[in-house]
């Protein structure tokens, strides 16, 4: 189980090989998700993307999610790498890899991890347009709904008490 937050670009093929090496002889399946920087404002020309994060909490939160995945599915290993800092369009931004004995567990765990990461790991995207204007990207409602589908409570909401069911 490894989590890396880095400003340097990564090579997804190398990361998949790393996961393959770490589980050689045991894994029957390796599934990985590769997230790419896209244009978050399709109606206006984009120049670049800046990724801010909360060092420490990011790693901790992703490790907790990997641990949850390990408890829910029969998986052998996970590798999550996330970029921070300045990125350009079309660059890879996140790699989520899962190795398991059988493919079902790897497919499910990988989808769970990227869904949960998007609503739990403290990263924030700021896009700069060609005209120099900047804006913070908003969380998509569909991402919050996907996380809820996995049985993960939305962040800050306490389902056990109606009175406490307010965001902090």
């Amino acid at each position, binding site marked *: 189980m490894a989590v890396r937050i880095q400003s340097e670009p990564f090579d997804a093929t190398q990361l998949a090989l790393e996961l393959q090496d770490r589980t050689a002889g045991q894994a029957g399946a390796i599934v990985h998700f590769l997230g790419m920087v896209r244009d978050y404002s399709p109606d206006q020309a984009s120049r670049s993307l800046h990724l801010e994060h909360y060092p420490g909490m990011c790693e901790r939160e992703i490790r907790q999610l990997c641990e949850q995945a390990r408890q829910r599915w029969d998986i052998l290993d996970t590798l999550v790498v996330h970029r921070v800092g300045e990125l350009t369009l079309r660059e890879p931004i996140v790699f989520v890899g899962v190795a398991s004995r059988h493919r079902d567990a790897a497919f499910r765990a990988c989808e769970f991890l990227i869904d949960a990461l998007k609503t739990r790991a*403290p*990263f924030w995207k700021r896009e700069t347009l060609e005209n120099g204007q900047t804006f913070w990207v908003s969380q998509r409602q569909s991402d919050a709904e996907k996380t809820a589908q996995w049985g993960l409570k939305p962040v800050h909401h306490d389902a056990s008490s109606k009175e406490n069911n307010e965001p902090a």
Partner: protein
Amino acid sequence: MENGALIEVLYFARVAEHTGTRHETVPLATPTPAGEWLQSLVDRFPSLAPASHLKLAINQQHALASDLIRPGDEVAVFDPVTGG
């Protein structure tokens, strides 16, 4: 009082732009529910309103409105996250 009754507060992304700082040490005399503390922050920085749209972490863990912030804690305030 333990730790001099202070908390370390971190602001991230858009929130830091509104507070004009990314880090400050502020007094906290007694354990205070996160929701209540967040409202007092919005009273200080009205452009952050509404408080219900902000997220808060205590000691690097996502917090509920009812969770207590205690003297000595590290508190972080931010918008809903947008990684991945």
